[in-house]
């Protein structure tokens, strides 16, 4: 009996510490603006909608809001996608699609525009609750710091 209560106590102590790691991220557009304010990014244009769908397969029905930024000029693979999924299940599905997008970018750069392979390899897909992001940038670490500041 004593062991039972000890286990319950341990669970109560551990769970809040886990929950505190959850980020309280703002909406995708606001989050990108926060990133842009704190990280020196190259000039990028927002192309969400059809471009996002054709590139990743993510459908508008799957998210409540999204931004998709690509470079304004040049051929570098920089790309920032931030999607707020409608629910947890679709967030998982969106993450899978963005994982595939990143894998395809990496595979592509192994054959063509090879000089960009290192920056693609630095790229990542992360999920924070309902927010799913694809970040391909030289500044990926700095961008992640902005994300992590929303605690």
């Amino acid at each position, binding site marked *: 009996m004593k062991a039972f209560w000890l286990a*319950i106590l341990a669970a109560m102590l551990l769970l809040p510490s886990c929950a505190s790691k959850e980020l309280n991220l703002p909406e995708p557009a606001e989050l990108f603006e926060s990133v842009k304010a704190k990280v020196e990014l190259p000039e990028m244009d927002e192309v969400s909608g059809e471009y996002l769908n054709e590139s*990743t397969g993510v459908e508008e029905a799957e998210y409540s809001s999204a931004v998709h930024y690509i470079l304004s000029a*040049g051929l570098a693979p920089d790309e920032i996608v931030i999607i707020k999924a409608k629910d947890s299940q679709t967030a998982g599905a969106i993450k899978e699609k963005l994982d595939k997008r990143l894998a395809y970018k990496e595979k592509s750069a192994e054959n063509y525009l090879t000089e*960009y392979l290192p920056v693609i390899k*630095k790229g990542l897909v992360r999920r924070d*609750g309902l927010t799913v992001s694809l970040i391909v940038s030289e500044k990926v670490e700095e961008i992640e710091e902005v994300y992590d500041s929303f605690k």
Partner: protein
Amino acid sequence: MARTIVALLLLLVLLPSCQALEPNSLEQIAAPSPEATPSPSPVPTLTEEPTVAPATDEPSEEPSPDVAPETDYPEPETDPPELETNSPEPENPKNDAYFDSAVFIGDSVMEGIRQYVARSRKEEAMLGEARFVTTTNGLAIADVVGDWDRGLMFSYKGVEAPLSDIVSGMGAERFILLFGLNDLSADLKPSVPDVIDRYMRMIAMIREASQGAEIIVLASTPKTVSNWLPPYVLNNGFDNELISSFVDGLAAMCQSEGIGYIDIHSVLMDESGALPAEYSRDDFVHLNDAGAKIVVDMLYDYASRG
């Protein structure tokens, strides 16, 4: 005892779920920043009036299978005259409906056009509801038709698939194609007639998969005058002479087969036969927004001719 086991099980179930709250990150590999440092190009002067070449135009000379690497490049002009505009002004209003059921398919040059269109669509209508199937993986026609086995494919809506599979599900009425430079640059000794033959086989495949949709071919872009070639170009003889030979072959193919043809090559070419730096993204063959705008204007002009 049983209660203890239940409690421990509860703990085991709860702990992994709380870890899921943490951000998921893929492996990050620190790598040095690549610096693509192409040699600078001169600023060429455009003297030709822009033209849209319809499918009925007389083709140029027969393509030559012999490709001689270009060795003499024009000297850069130190004080270039002012660049004349060569963006054709459509005589008719933009016929966006013409592109509503169109699909643009192509390599990284087409991807540049796609990005320009995606950016522009945030401000204004452009090319109706046209869709794009593009890639930056260096895909050649030889990959599409199976002459090469490099495992390269398009990815559309997140799914890698053979082009015929992608096309068959799109319900498009017309396909606008821009291909060929990767066949010339990724082959140590490319044969222009072979590439033209591949192009024709790819068109036949698209027609079969799409139940006879209309095909329109865009001529390839020239490359800039620079001697610089990216490291992924295997053919050291990849130059404007080779590209022109290929474009001549394309024009002949389109005329003999009754395929729509838009000659963006001659409009994007300066008097030395090269892509002006003003239209280049990378001092190679890829178009920037100014170059892509010219192509879009030519597309509208072509559409207005019916």
